[in-house]
């Protein structure tokens, strides 16, 4: 039995075919990304100028359409506030799940519903905030902070799930060592568990920021689309995705050019956060 039987031609061909198909599939998956980035650069970079980033949209039908300053400002303000709400809350829920809830029935239920939340379409969050905060007229009608709340709802499950995964990875021997030294739970959590999991948690938060920055649907119902820059989170607020959405709807070349420029700016912003998250994840020993 020392001779090896050669693989038959048919089997060899099937193998080759399958390989070719898989490579083709992978190529097809990559092509849209290349195309999108290509067109973004090609049409977007032309719109960029100093004026583009430092002026508000004018809304004038002729002449200078203005830039995207208010949109960038609005996105940063609203996503910033949303992060300030969603990050601590999400990490808090994750902490309860890993440190207290563990495998209890209630914790399983919470975990399940956090997963359900990740699957809720972002427009439903927008509708919900519209119904509860805008229609009821809490603090005026449309407002930046209401947009933030919608974004925070969207970020919450992302932060919770990623934080829970990292917190699970903190070795229980570390917790036991802290407790054995007589430290109370809250100190163990604050001084041992959280610091150990921090890089991973930050990665999750950054990814949720990247996600929230690109969301349009929750914002058009809550913060709407305006032109002027504002630092007042209680007033209607512009945002990059909303600005792009409104410009796409106008059949004017100047506005479409602005949409491409804004889209490029938005993608660059999101890639920045994603890359940062990746780098941090690589640094983190826990992941």
């Amino acid at each position, binding site marked *: 039995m020392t001779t090896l039987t050669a*693989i038959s031609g048919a*089997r060899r061909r*099937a*193998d080759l*075919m*399958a390989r070719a*198909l*898989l*490579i*083709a*599939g*992978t190529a*097809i*998956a990559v092509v849209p*990304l290349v*195309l*999108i980035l290509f067109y973004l650069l090609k*049409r977007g970079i032309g719109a960029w100028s100093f004026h583009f980033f430092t002026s508000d949209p004018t809304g004038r039908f002729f002449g200078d359409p203005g830039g995207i300053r208010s949109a960038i400002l609005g996105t940063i303000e609203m996503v910033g506030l949303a992060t300030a709400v969603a990050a601590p*809350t999400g990490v*808090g*829920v994750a902490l*309860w*799940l890993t440190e*207290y809830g563990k495998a209890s029935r*209630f914790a399983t*239920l*919470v975990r399940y519903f*956090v*997963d*359900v939340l*990740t*699957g809720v*379409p*972002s*427009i439903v969050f927008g*509708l*919900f905030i519209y119904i509860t905060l805008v229609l009821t007229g809490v603090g005026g009608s449309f407002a930046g902070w209401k947009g933030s709340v919608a974004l925070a709802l969207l970020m919450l499950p*992302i932060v919770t*799930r*990623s934080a829970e*995964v990292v917190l*699970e990875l903190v070795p229980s021997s570390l917790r036991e060592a802290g407790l054995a030294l007589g430290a*109370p*739970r809250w100190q163990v*959590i604050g001084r041992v568990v959280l610091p150990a999991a921090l890089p991973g948690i930050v990665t999750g938060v950054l*990814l949720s920021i990247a996600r929230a920055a*690109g*969301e*349009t*649907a929750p914002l058009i119902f809550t913060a709407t689309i305006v032109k002027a820059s504002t630092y007042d989170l209680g007033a209607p607020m512009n945002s990059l*995705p909303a600005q*792009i*959405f409104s410009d*796409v709807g106008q059949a004017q070349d100047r506005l*479409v050019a602005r949409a*491409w420029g804004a889209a490029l700016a*938005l*993608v660059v912003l*999101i*890639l920045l956060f994603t890359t940062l998250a990746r780098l941090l994840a690589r640094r983190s020993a826990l992941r």
Partner: protein
Amino acid sequence: MESASIGATYGGRPALGRPPLARLPDRVLKWGLAALAAGVLVLIGFFFVRLYIEAKPAFDRFGYFGFTFTNNWDVQGNTFGALPLLVGTLITSAVALVIGVPVAIAAALYTTEFCPSRYRTVLASVIDLLAAVPSVVYGLWGFFVLIPKLRPAEQWFSDTFSFLPFVGGHVAGPSYFIAGLVLAIMIIPIVSAISREVISTVPTDHKEAALALGATRWEMIRMAVLPYSRAGITGAAMLGLGRAMGETIAATIVIGNAPVLGKSLFDQGYTLAAVIANEFGEAASDPLHRAALIAAGLILFTLTLIVNAVARGIIVRGPAREEGAASEAFGATG
């Protein structure tokens, strides 16, 4: 856990116990965090109830069944039947699944089984990058690049294969097909990422056993990898379906926003999510119209809840590691 009582006592309390005041922060933290966790549940319940209350006028007027399954969305006539929207959502997500899922699985298989390990992470993160592109940018690209470039090919296809059902006739620019195609691109990263994680949990023993028996790579995949990861991949596809159904802005831009039942794949249509985003502005002053839009949102919410619950069920039943992987990938897209 807070104070392990050891035999000796001192002044009425265990010698090693903490004074009551020192134990307070622990209690506060424990119950505070528990309240946060419970808050998530309350939130979802509140969500559903509020949406339902606001949608009720539309349901009262047209009936639950009547609203959902009547083919008549007429804003001027103040009559609302969501069938064209529901059908649009189902058709575009079906197109997205048919195109997107095979591509995503192929990419996942290639990345995990064939790609040289040196390039594996690079290839994986390139495909994940698709998730970093925002919905509105997909819409912009789809509208100004994909629609004009694909139109001749679509028209040719429509003319040549007009004997097929739902094919033929004039090709509209924005259409069910274009929307489905854009959604397919958008679900590739999530389906691929979860499939990749699921496939990487296949025990090396199984794969080596197949190879040792003389299987070719493809036979090994067919006999060892796919059977083991079938549940997980199905779950991944379902999650992709949930995504596709709820996707709003990209679909709004490229579907044409015509509230009718298109006769072919290349006709303009509407989806549940798109109608909300689009008609919302004009509906602010008309309570019935607004209720109808919220009712459309409620239908969408219910649909995605069911799909996601089923997907979760399928994935969780697989090996334990898959769940973590799935939820990670869950969050990493947008």
